[in-house]
């Protein structure tokens, strides 16, 4: 006899109700902490929502951050589908930024934006993929666990980039460890050109590109035979081998795509905002990708919604700390941690109870 597991919950429950309950729990704990800091949780929440969603400019910033997170979220998700926990999106995004920058520094004076931007994106994707290749190869051929190698590669990327930026990219006479500022041809067109509603925000074509990436991801993963094999590899490697999937190639390819997507995350944050390569520019976006993949359950809609949520938390949290001196900026990191805790580590906390409730209502 089979024991009823939480996985037997209907899809609307695992896909919508559980994540919402988890999110609510995280926010409740956050509210408690804000209360302990001596501020009103309700008022703080209001400020947060106001500045992140209701205010058009705030919304613009929220979606700008979300555009980056969609890519890191996709990067972690596609690896997760293959059963690989890619912790290295941070490093891959960082290294992808180098590919982008090298392309731009070489051609931004001579190429038009129509050529410059795709070329820079290609550079970002190739370098990101490159940084994910070795962990993927080692996992596939040597069984070195990808979690361990990608963590190490994050550190290597940080040191290597530090070296490259300071030694080779720093313009003469500059103190700030960053490359030179890119020419206008390498700037992503902002959306307020067409939608003045968003006001003065960096929201750019990176956002529609992210949406396109989500759609492609959704189709490839759940409609293509390749995606079918990818998921089979993640769910049961023995069976995938039986079915004729080339497991080691699948692992390497999944890591390459994952790395390329992480690399592409740098496009929005560099070419959409700072316009130069700076030290530690990913600023944790790769790690947020992990939370997004977990919370969005690797589903394109879920990834989109969680990306927007995290974008809103950054944007709103920043304004909140300006308005409420008792609440430090780090509160956002704390809330982010809570969300990861509830959505990742305690994913099934409410599963059994919800199952009971559903069974009870069905009987009654």
């Amino acid at each position, binding site marked *: 006899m089979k024991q009823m597991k939480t996985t*037997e919950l209907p899809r609307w429950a695992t896909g919508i109700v559980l994540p919402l309950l988890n999110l609510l729990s995280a926010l409740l704990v956050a509210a408690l902490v804000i209360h302990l800091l001596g501020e009103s949780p309700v008022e703080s929440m209001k400020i947060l929502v106001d500045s992140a969603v209701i205010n058009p400019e705030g919304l613009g910033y929220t979606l700008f951050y979300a555009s980056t997170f969609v890519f890191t979220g996709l990067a972690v998700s596609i690896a997760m589908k293959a059963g690989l926990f890619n912790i290295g999106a941070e490093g891959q995004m960082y290294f992808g930024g180098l590919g982008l920058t090298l392309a731009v520094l070489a051609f931004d004076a001579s190429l038009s934006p129509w050529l410059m931007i795709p070329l820079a994106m290609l550079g970002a994707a190739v370098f990101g993929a490159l940084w994910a290749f070795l962990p993927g190869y080692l996992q596939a051929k040597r069984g070195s666990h990808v979690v361990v190698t990608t963590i190490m590669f994050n550190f290597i990327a940080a040191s290597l980039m530090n070296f490259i930026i300071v030694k080779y990219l720093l313009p003469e006479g500059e103190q700030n460890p960053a490359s030179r500022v890119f020419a206008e041809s390498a700037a992503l067109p902002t959306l307020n050109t067409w939608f003045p509603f968003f006001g003065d925000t960096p929201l750019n074509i990176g956002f529609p590109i992210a949406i396109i990436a989500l759609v492609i991801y959704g189709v490839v993963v759940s409609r293509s035979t390749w995606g079918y094999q990818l998921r089979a590899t993640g769910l049961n490697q023995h069976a995938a081998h039986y079915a004729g999937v080339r497991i080691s190639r699948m692992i390497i390819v999944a890591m390459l795509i994952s790395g390329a997507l992480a690399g592409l995350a740098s496009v929005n944050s560099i070419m959409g905002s700072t316009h130069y390569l700076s030290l530690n520019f990913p600023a944790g976006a790769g790690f947020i990708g992990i939370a997004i993949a977990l919370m969005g359950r690797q589903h394109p809609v879920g990834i989109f919604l969680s990306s927007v949520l995290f974008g809103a938390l950054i944007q709103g949290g920043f304004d909140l700390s300006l308005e409420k001196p008792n609440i430090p900026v780090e509160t956002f990191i704390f809330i982010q941690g809570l969300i990861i805790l509830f959505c990742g580590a305690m994913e099934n906390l409410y599963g059994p109870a919800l199952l009971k409730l559903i069974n009870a209502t069905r009987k009654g």
Partner: protein
Amino acid sequence: MQPAVEFRNISKAFGPVQANADVSFTIAKGSIHGVIGENGAGKSTLMSILYGYYHADSGQLLIDGQARNIRTSQEAIDLGIGMVHQHFMLVENMTVLDNVMLGAEGGFKLAAQRKDVENKLRDICTRYRLDVDPLATIHDLSVGAQQRVEILKQIYRSANILILDEPTAVLTAQETASLFEILRLFKDQGKTIILITHKLGEIMDITDQVTVMRAGRVAGAVTTSETSKEQLASMMVGRPIEGNLPRQPFNPGAPVLKVSNLQLQDASKVQLLADINLSVRAGEIVALAGVSGNGQSELMEILAGMRLPTSGQVELEGKALPYTGRSNADGLPSTFRQLGIGHVPEDRLRDGVIKDYSVMQNTVFGYESRVKNRWGLFDFDAIAKRCAHLLQAFDVRPNNPDLRIGLLSGGNQQKVVIAREVSAQPKLMLVGQPTRGVDIGTIEAIHTQLLRLRDEGVAILLVSTELEEVRALADRIVVMSGGRVTGELPIDEFDTTRIGLLMGGMHKS
């Protein structure tokens, strides 16, 4: 005398599935009581309730005449109930002694009690003729010996009621005989044994009373000496079972599979397969008989392309299979499928299906490249049509293509796997343990399908550890032992004793 166990109106449901419905029967003290039934008949659920894993929705459980509410397995153990699971609960790299003491250490300092427990174990071993060295490490022991360790563990914890779940599934005929000796000794000491099985022969051999379960209910309770296999079988399925399935006269065609001098060594140079020579003709079922773990699985994996042989040659319709020039078997099964080799794997949950995929998705598993359009996307209409046809033709229940296959019973999962492999119209079909964990009604359906495939001219290589199955299906029997072929005989010379000896490694003499 008080009965050892009494079930009174026990009911238990899992969601919409009624696993036990109003089950009532008693088990006499000092008897061997058989509980039989098809898969999913509710035997395991009932025993899990007795052992404290599950809690009955309603009904009463009496142990030695007293109503008990067993909430955890620890409480069951305290009441003197012991369970030997089908899959052993042993720590492989610990000794017998440590395994017995695990969970019953009885204090912080281990060393002090070790000697004590060891002596007790030696004493129990002599008394029950268990033949186990307390200081041996588990992974060095044979399957039969590991099972004796499980029994030893229960006796040490002074179990008076011993539940055995399909204990002979992994044993040779000789090991089964010695297990039954032990059980009889156990009974002579006044202890009670509950034997869960679906093998009617064993029930007739050893039990005093039998309870037959069907669809969660008690379908019959009889005294073993007053019943027959036929009667039990028809109680189990609810209808009389046909003895022999119809088959066309044996009329083999050209050889399809030819294996010559096949060798396989593992990484540490242990010889897993030695000098295998074998052929299967079109329209012929060749059964590889043998106790499991004697190289049959490895041979099947090689023939399916899941594993590379160390040396030797395999020909399919006269053409050598492409093992050479590669460092691993990655992707090879796909090539073999295109060459016309179908494979129903032995371990269907490990290899044959993706539990989290729907029934429909599983019907194209391994053949997904045949149902894609030019964009590399699935042609869902074609798949759905194909799936509906297969579920109908192979009578998969429930007939719902969108259900996760993990929710189907073992028999129905197997039907999906067989349907998928048959529908690809292979020239050679490799079939591993097709009816393991499958209920009697489904066994018949699966056997019928395999015989039909044979009559259509497909060459079939079957691995089975059940001699009944071998007898029902095979045209020719090849016996394996220790990675070698020890004998070969046509079906009309079927002889249990001779096959048993060959399985034990006695060469053709």
